């Protein structure tokens, strides 16, 4: 324990496709509010980055309750993308975010290419907004409600639309509910994405047997937490072999060990999601744990371990 404090600090800086971070530890969209919710519990200045709750053009009320259910080592949510809308975000949330010495990434969502482009443009050129993360797990209303994120062509088109509308670094957040995650990543790379983040939640469901009703009013919801970590890690590893843009790993990350698994698999940074709820200190512990790991592995820089999983026979 004491050793943790006295070890030499490693260089933790990384660059996510034009977004320089002091360390690779970010918070995931929808799990950290607009940052301020955690100001008493986390040293926000110490984080690599904060990704805020997904923002749409109009405020969204979200889904009816119940919206969350606990599952084995995970949770289902069907928040329904409740958010304050871009106007209130800019006037009410950005002033506080601006005071933080950490990078702020704004997660955006829309139901048409135009909406995504509009949001990207409106969010550009503000002090305190350093990058965009594009949630493409939303239904495309013009294409019968199929999610942008399950069709390579649609995903590529959203990426291109956002890239044209902004100079900010653009991170595309991939949905895991697809047959071939690598080809989705390749499509958005071709669309001009500066980086990809993955995974968003797996689609799941629960039923209350005594009432025979779905446990979520929305029937289906997104599964997150430690339960999904093995799937997320596999997808990050597959994507790392398919694209050359930086990857941000997300999914069930709770400890430094979890975070390091994603870095070894090829992620340049990671986001902590559900763990913020039950262990608000998770991000800070991961930063401390990264220094400790690099020291033990005789590395002085976090960039030297990215993608260094050792394959091939162990004997």
């Amino acid at each position, binding site marked *: 324990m004491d050793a943790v404090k006295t070890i030499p600090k490693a260089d933790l800086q990384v660059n996510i496709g034009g977004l320089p971070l002091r360390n690779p530890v970010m918070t995931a969209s*929808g*799990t*950290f*509010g607009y940052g301020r*919710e*955690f100001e*008493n*519990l986390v040293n926000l200045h110490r984080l690599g980055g904060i990704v805020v*709750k997904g923002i749409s053009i109009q405020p969204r*009320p*979200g889904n*009816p*309750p*119940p*919206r*969350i*259910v*606990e599952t*084995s*080592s*995970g*949770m289902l*949510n069907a*928040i329904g993308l*409740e958010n304050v809308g871009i106007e209130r975000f800019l006037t009410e949330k950005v002033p506080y975010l601006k005071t933080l010495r950490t990078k702020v990434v704004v997660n955006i969502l829309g139901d048409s290419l135009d909406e995504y482009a509009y949001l990207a443009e409106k969010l550009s050129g503000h002090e305190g907004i350093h990058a965009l993360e594009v949630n493409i797990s939303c239904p495309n209303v013009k294409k019968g409600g199929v999610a942008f994120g399950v069709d390579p062509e649609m995903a590529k088109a959203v990426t291109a639309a956002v890239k044209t509308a902004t100079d900010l670094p653009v991170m595309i957040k991939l949905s895991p509910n697809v047959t071939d995650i690598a080809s989705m990543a390749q499509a958005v790379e071709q669309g001009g994405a500066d980086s990809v983040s993955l995974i968003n939640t797996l689609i799941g469901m629960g039923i209350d047997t005594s009432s025979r009703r779905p446990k979520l009013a929305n029937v289906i919801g997104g599964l997150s*937490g*430690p*339960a999904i970590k093995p799937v997320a890690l596999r997808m990050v590893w597959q994507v790392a072999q398919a694209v050359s843009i930086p990857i941000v790993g997300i999914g069930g990350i*709770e400890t430094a060990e979890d975070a390091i698994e994603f870095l070894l698999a090829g992620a340049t940074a990671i986001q902590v999601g*559900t763990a*913020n*709820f*039950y*262990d*608000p*200190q998770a991000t800070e512990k991961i930063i401390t744990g990264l220094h400790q790991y690099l020291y033990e592995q005789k590395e002085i820089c976090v960039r030297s371990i990215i993608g260094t999983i050792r394959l091939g026979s162990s004997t």
Partner: protein
Amino acid sequence: MPNFQEKALVQAHEQLAPDIFRLTVHSPQIAQASAPGQFVMIKSSNTSDPLLRRPFSIHDVTSGGMLHLLYKVIGKGTRCLQNLSPGEQTDLIGPLGHGFQFSVQEPACLLGGGMGIAPLLYLAKSLQNVSSPRQDHQILLGARTSVELAPLVDDFQQLGYTVQAATDDGSLGHHGFVSELLEEVLPSVRTVYVCGPHPLMAAIARQCQAADVPCQVSLETHMACGLGACLGCTIYAPDKSYRHVCKHGPVFDANEVLWTL
């Protein structure tokens, strides 16, 4: 409002009834900042199952930074809590949410059903600072059966209150619902604080509205964070817009809630 994450040592863990426990932890920061009706989120396990923290009302705060919780064993989280022994560490976040608003309209009625009694003890203690003598207030407590209720009735009596009890099986006090006791006392009180199962609170809210007596209710919903971050803890306001129980509540004016039963 400040909140804290505190590693709190268990000081005492008392079994009041077969599945009801009172947990006392040393949590000076949270205790010091707490107001009646606020709650804490407690980690019930060191592994990933159960995963989420569990919300519990602040049952009492006593000298030396002691925080008391009163809980019933329901599912896996509370089953894990049950195993805590004095000297072990728990991990709490709190105080959270908005508690009861002290009303200047007195005397008050404090009405609790089941584990809804938990926050009322701390509230009852805190009422002392207000004008009416304790005997003027009405304490109405309901539970399934005597063993679950008797120790709590004692606690309120020791504070100098007169308590009326109701049990489903008639083993203590009135044989029936605690809401039935309210009819009698309603004409003589000028504010009602209530916590209990949703149908009970809905019934009380209706009675109070009919009698034009202000009523505050403490609501429960599933919560992932307790911090206003997950947006999971919604209820409906009368205009069908949403409120977040962990942030706007858990205590609401009964008129700000859409009662759906």
